[in-house]
């Protein structure tokens, strides 16, 4: 039983069934070394809306979800020290300009103005990648990073501090030519 390696808290059925199925054709971005294992997958609006519709999300919520770009990030700390996930330290750049990221507050406000039930807000929140996380050795984490939808390809430069006091060597992983699925 491979619970420990597969136990990414936010892995949805969607990611296993659709995203993994799509990987043969579209080769998702992957990186792995002795410190970190990282994979990103751009999700199509139909995949995202299908998942949330299946959980009873209202039309208004789905409408807002379909307008955003969803990138699923799955990572595991392969090292024997702490690795810090902090999305604010990442650089997501399209055409030399930072791409606007939709953080939790954006969705909170969006859902509040559309009177989305708390249960749906909660479920949605659990499918987002945590903004900040101290990842223990062998600990996986996963979830969606959401941003403004663009047709331009963009770069995701992901930076991770390391060590309990964040004083270890920084890990930088860069994926170029990432695209939102339209």
């Amino acid at each position, binding site marked *: 039983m491979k619970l420990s390696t597969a136990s990414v*808290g936010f892995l949805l059925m969607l990611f296993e069934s659709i995203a993994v199925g799509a990987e043969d054709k579209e080769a998702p971005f992957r990186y792995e070394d002795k410190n970190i294992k990282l994979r990103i997958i751009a999700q199509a609006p139909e995949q995202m809306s299908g998942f949330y519709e299946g959980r009873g999300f209202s039309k208004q919520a789905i409408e807002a979800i379909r307008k955003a770009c969803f990138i699923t990030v799955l990572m595991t700390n392969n090292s024997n020290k702490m690795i810090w996930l902090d999305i604010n330290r990442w650089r997501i750049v399209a055409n030399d300009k930072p791409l606007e990221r939709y953080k939790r507050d954006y969705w909170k406000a969006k859902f509040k103005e559309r009177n989305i039930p708390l249960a749906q807000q909660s479920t949605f929140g659990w499918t987002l990648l945590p903004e900040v996380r101290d990842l223990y050795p062998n600990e996986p984490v996963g979830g969606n990073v959401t941003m403004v939808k663009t047709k331009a390809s963009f770069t995701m430069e992901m930076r991770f501090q390391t060590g309990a006091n964040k004083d270890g060597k920084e890990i930088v992983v860069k994926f170029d030519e990432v695209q939102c699925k339209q």
Partner: protein
Amino acid sequence: MKRTCLFTLLLFIMFGFSQALAESIRLPKGIITLTPKPAPTLVLKNMDGEIFDLKKSRGHWVFVHFWASWCVPCRREIPTVEKAMVALANSSLEFVLINTAESEDTVFNFLGIVAPDLNPLLDEDGQVTELWQSRGLPSTYLVDPQGQQRYLALGGRPWDETEYMEFLKRLAQLK
């Protein structure tokens, strides 16, 4: 007065001994020790409408587990939780499962196939799970007899495997 002092001292020694024992337990993979802090409020109804209040579980260890049916690691883990629960039914360890933000129908349909013996608490609006600030789903906390969060399982764990079962058995023996 002497008797009160002696009683307090005895309690203090017992508590200290229990703390030391809890700290000396060999931890299975993916279980981390937390700096003890009071567990957040946990008052919810189960699927039969009965109210559970974690505060009333003082005096024994509690396995507090958050999950949702859409979460793949939860789906893999929950049958192992059920097996551990059945195997430890005669111990003092109490299992408390909390479904996060799903309807009773969804939970009922899911558990009917996967783990029919479980009767989880329903955190229908997800606010109790938020309060606990879990690291994700699934999340398991082990709460000590004084109501303190003492251990956390990182992600899903195979609770029915020997090292996890031994760990839980040892906890159940601690006061």
